[in-house]
């Protein structure tokens, strides 16, 4: 009886531990990401409206933000994903948030975005842009941006942009730019 109770509590504790990790990894607040621990079936893609985007970009809590904007229909975006995953792993444990924002429609999370992320094995947090007008999202990212995908930007812990690239980048290029931003702190 005592043994059975111990086993029950062991599993309860284990379930609690794993439950906590998956929450902070993907759908949690910015800055709480924990590396490599969640099975892909746990993928959450939260909607990002103007207010949440502004908070994500401004409230950095001492961390650098690497932001990648992509879409499931964008071929160079898919080609870029292995480098983004490598980037996320390279900066694991350091004050850098790697975050993706999908420019697909916000009602395509289940049908397109999650299957795409599963296929790519994406370990970092991904949101879907949820703005009334597409142009508002484009301008909120950068007023000079045409909307061409993919696009990547780096924001320093003070909430200032230090890098912006339209088109496909590489791991080496992004790593160098993050390190440059780190060096400038």
């Amino acid at each position, binding site marked *: 009886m005592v043994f059975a109770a111990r086993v029950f509590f062991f599993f309860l504790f284990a379930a609690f531990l794993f439950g906590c990790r998956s929450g902070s990894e993907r759908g949690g607040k910015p800055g709480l990401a924990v590396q490599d621990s969640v099975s892909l079936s746990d993928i959450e893609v939260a909607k990002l409206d103007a207010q949440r985007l502004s908070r994500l970009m401004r409230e950095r809590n001492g961390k650098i933000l690497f932001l990648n904007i992509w879409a499931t*229909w*964008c071929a160079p975006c898919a080609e870029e994903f292995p480098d983004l995953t490598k980037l996320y792993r390279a900066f694991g444990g350091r004050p850098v948030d790697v975050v993706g924002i999908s420019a697909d429609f916000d009602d395509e999370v289940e049908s397109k975005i999650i299957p795409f992320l599963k296929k790519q094995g994406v370990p970092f947090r991904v949101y879907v842009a949820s703005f009334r007008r597409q142009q508002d999202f484009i301008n909120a990212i950068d007023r000079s941006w045409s*909307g*061409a*995908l993919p696009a990547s930007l780096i924001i320093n812990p003070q909430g200032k942009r230090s890098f912006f690239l339209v*088109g496909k980048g590489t791991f080496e290029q992004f790593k160098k730019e993050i390190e440059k931003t780190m060096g400038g702190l």
Partner: protein
Amino acid sequence: MLNSFSRMMVVSVLLVLLLLGAGARKKVSDFTLDDYNGKKHSLADYKSSKAIVLMFIATQCPVSNAYNTRMVELQKDYASKGVAFIGINSNKQESAEEEKNHAKEHEFVFPILKDWNNVIADKLQASVTPEIFVLNSGFEVLYHGRIDDSQRENKVASKDLRAALDRILSGKSVEVEETKAFGCTIKRVQ
């Protein structure tokens, strides 16, 4: 006193320059490109049109392809009113043969020009497909941006290109001259 007078003069000159600059429209110089049959087309060939619509399009881009029917309808509705439609393909990986098949499949009746080495895309600073430039007969850009505000036709709230053409045809200035939308990056030569 002299200093403040000089300062005032500098500010006035800057203001005048700013106002003159604000009124100046971007102008496109004439160019010649081959269509997918090898026939040459110059911008000057369309000079007598009431407006020239340059459409940067692609064969493989899902966003551009979402607008195939709308492009055909636009051409149908406005060609008889004196508007010329010209498709331009600047993607390095899309061949003239592919363009030809794509045009046939989607019943495009407007010419599609192959912009090898993305020379015209660079000249106009076009970056995505689809991307529209509407010119007057003096090749000044009257409208630049999207066809409308949604890839999903049933969600369109703002038919920006139609609105621009309607204003031009009625002799009025275009109300919204610049718009933006997501699109596929034009695949340029390195």
